């Protein structure tokens, strides 16, 4: 009886350890991305920023799907994001997809703003209007160029 109790405990320990490995793997990996009932859309961006596969797709702040894959279109040199949307959510045609950041230093996600069409997007459709990620380096670069341009004109402009 004593040895049977020990065997049961060892079996429970192994099960618990394997369950812990399973939970870790499933929680850490993006296995669930792209699975389940739904439809697939694509969106092309000039600059995708730090968006990664597995990132959430949100509409009105509610998660409606996931980015499943990101690749570069060799013809247009645009980043193409493949998106899996849960079947319970409909997206009207003419909607806009934007690469957004949650918080100042948060992770990237795809935000969808609804369009005005009465028809919904279907499996295989792509977003006509997209907005690329806001890259801080570009913004700062533009700001610096503008500042130096203003500086030059003010210093260069003498009394006429």
């Amino acid at each position, binding site marked *: 009886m004593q040895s049977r109790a*020990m*065997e049961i*405990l*060892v079996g*429970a*320990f*192994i099960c*618990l*350890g*394997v369950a*812990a*490995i399973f*939970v*870790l*793997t499933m*929680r*850490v*990996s*993006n296995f669930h991305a792209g699975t389940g009932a739904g439809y697939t859309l694509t969106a092309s961006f000039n600059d995708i920023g730090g968006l*990664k596969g*597995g*990132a*959430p797709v949100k509409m009105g702040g509610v*998660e409606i799907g996931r980015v499943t894959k990101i690749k570069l279109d060799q013809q247009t040199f645009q980043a193409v994001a493949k998106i899996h949307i849960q079947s319970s959510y409909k997206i009207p045609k003419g909607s806009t997809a934007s690469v957004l950041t*949650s*918080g*100042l*230093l*948060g*992770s990237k996600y795809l935000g969808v703003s609804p369009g005005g069409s009465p028809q919904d997007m279907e499996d295989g459709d792509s977003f006509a209007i997209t907005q690329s990620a806001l890259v801080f380096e570009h913004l700062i670069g533009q700001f610096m160029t503008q500042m130096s341009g203003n500086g030059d004109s003010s210093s260069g402009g003498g009394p006429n």
Partner: protein
Amino acid sequence: MTAAVGQLARSALDWLADLGASVFFLLRVIAATPVLIRKPRLLVEQIYSIGVLSMVIIVVSGLFVGMVLALSGYRALVQFGAENSLGTSVALVVVRELGPVVTALLFAGRAGSAVAAEIGLMKATDQLSGMEMMAVDPMRRVIAPRFVAGIVTLPLLTAIFSVMAIGAGGGYYVGVSLLGVDASAYWHGIQASVSVGDLADMFIKSGVFGAIITWVAVFEGYRTAPTSAGVSRATTNTVVIASLAILGANLILTAVLFSGGA
């Protein structure tokens, strides 16, 4: 002066001889492991005494480590408005470093010392020589099961520790339930930053640590002086040597796995 140099040289030679003896011992242990295929019960008994009995300390430590990481991480991140990255910071620290290392250090203290003391006491009470007299190889009957049990159980214990630290009881409880971090941001941060490769590295590390700890423990126990002082020394040596070896091996493994993943 000459005497001091001579003493130093003797100590260095003794150390080298110990290292060589431990390597020969390890080879004998590995050669004796196939017996576990025919007698798995020996392994099951050791998984119980090494793994199951270490569970409580691992689970409780995992909870507390996760809570502390979430608290201190939140305090640092909230200054930058980046508290949504709490999941990322907790999971990265636990999976890459603290999970394998802290579990291994606790395992060395709990199970390694117990193995060394048990084998040392068997030697002090002539049980090992008694086995040899009855044509039972203590290497197969006593040493090999403990060695393999260490390699098998430590990765499982590390997984349990990590789930406790990151999951519901530890970091998640403090971060999401107490401090109000968004739950989906917590999990998404983990998914975005920790890869399956990081988990694989974690299990490779903990398997190696398990081998190191039980190797040190069985060697120290087997060669101990058959006295109470000898058993006590073997126990202390096991914890000290195994802990230092874990920290050293962690540096090497992190460098190797990091360069492999880069």
